[in-house]
């Protein structure tokens, strides 16, 4: 059982390293884009609110595989391909995940009591100041547990890139099939790999839940 892993160690290492890079890069980008979208959705400018709402409603009802398909096969037909498959995958994951990040941030903003924003406004802060100095720092605390769920989902979603020629962990089974290796054991090792990556996130979530429960 162990030999399946040790004999093909470089394949597993490469695969999970790509998975990790996909996760980290698209995770950071989704957090940024999602927060910006959430700011759009609570802003006083109607057009910005419309953009935020429209984006979230469309993307949340689109399968991620369709987003991937469009960016990999469709975008090339209008000469918009991204430099590498890796970056096309990052773009797909970011576009998709930021809609969910946006909703979490927005509901986090709604948990802050109106008094906080009112007090901030009464000392003369602008909308951007109220949001970035007073509301968001407090909202982020309530946001951490649901945000971790989203990051876990993102980590699992990176496997879809395997269907689109990105050599990450989800692509290991196909490569192992070519080598004539035992498929079931390969999948078991991949599962273990994902559990190793996910369990720290779950502990982070539990810890954050405990902390916010006290505060």
């Amino acid at each position, binding site marked *: 059982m162990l030999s399946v892993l040790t004999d093909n160690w470089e394949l597993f290492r490469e695969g999970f390293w790509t998975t990790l890079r996909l996760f980290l890069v698209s995770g950071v980008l989704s957090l940024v884009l999602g927060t910006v979208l959430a700011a759009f959705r609570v802003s006083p400018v109607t057009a910005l609110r419309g953009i935020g709402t429209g984006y979230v409603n*469309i993307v949340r009802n*689109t399968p991620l595989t369709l987003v991937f398909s469009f960016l990999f*096969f469709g975008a090339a037909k209008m000469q918009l391909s991204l430099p590498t498959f890796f970056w096309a995958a990052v773009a797909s994951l970011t576009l998709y995940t930021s809609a969910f990040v946006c909703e979490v941030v927005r509901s986090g903003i709604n948990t802050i009591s109106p008094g906080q924003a009112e007090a901030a406004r009464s000392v003369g802060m602008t909308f951007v100041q109220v949001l970035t100095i007073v509301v968001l720092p407090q909202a982020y605390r309530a946001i951490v547990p649901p945000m971790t769920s989203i990051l876990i989902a993102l980590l699992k979603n990176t*496997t879809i890139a395997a269907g689109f020629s990105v050599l990450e962990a989800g692509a290991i089974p196909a490569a192992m099939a070519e080598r004539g290796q035992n*498929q079931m054991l390969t999948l078991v090792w991949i599962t273990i790999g*994902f559990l190793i990556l996910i369990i720290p996130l779950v502990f982070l979530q539990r810890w954050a839940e405990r902390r916010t429960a006290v505060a």
Partner: protein
Amino acid sequence: MSAVLYDVPGPRAKARNRILNVIVLLAVAGVITWVVLRLNDNGQFQGRRWAQFQYAAIQRELLTGLVNTLRAAGLATVLAMLFGAVFAAGRISDHKWVRMPATLVVELFRAIPLLILMFFFYYGSLEFQLGLTPFHAVVFGLTLYNGSVLAEIFRAGITAVPKGQREAAYATGLRKNQVVRLVLLPQAIRSMLPAIVSQLVVLLKDTALGFIITYNELLYVAKQMGGRLEFGFPYIPTYFVVAVIYIGLCSLLSMLAKYLEGRSRRSRKTTAPPVQIEESTAA
């Protein structure tokens, strides 16, 4: 609500918002024009790329894909509900030897990427000659993952019913299964219905993963249609049509979830607070 973030706009703020509105709308119009021009420059609006949708054979092909998607989603929904009910019952059991394995199974299947779950059935069938088709791999994968999530929703729904309800039911002499069946479940189902429907949206979207393991569903059909030389590789027109179908179907379900949530908030026929719809979702 978000309205607390800014004051009711006065004349100056109104003027500023109006200017910002115009700027944003212009920017959006600019982006849309750029995309349309880009599509036009690459001939994506040419008649030959769209002509395929007039053929009855192509329409039938699309319809077959859609039916296959719905078939997988429908069967997986039924199986996932059953799976969820059984494991939720296991997780709220009073016996530790039932609770522990149920918890383990639910937590495990929620942690494994759905695509890997499908691979287990797909490659497992090849290796052990089980004779499972990609359809089965999609359905069983969806069942295990969504069943586990539903089990958590069911459990959350039942534990959200206030303690007094259970105590009162026991005090009137009901047995354990009567308490759950007659008192807790009817109240829990109302509070968790929106969360269940939201999960079904996730399930419907996830059928698109079948594309990767060659299940002949809507997205797979779209890829084949897009790859046809005689229509000039109409990937963009085809994905556009397919996206409209997916977004339409999922939006309908999402709206149903929203409606149910609003209804249960308006008329409280249950003592349980609504179950949180988790934003975490698979593909």
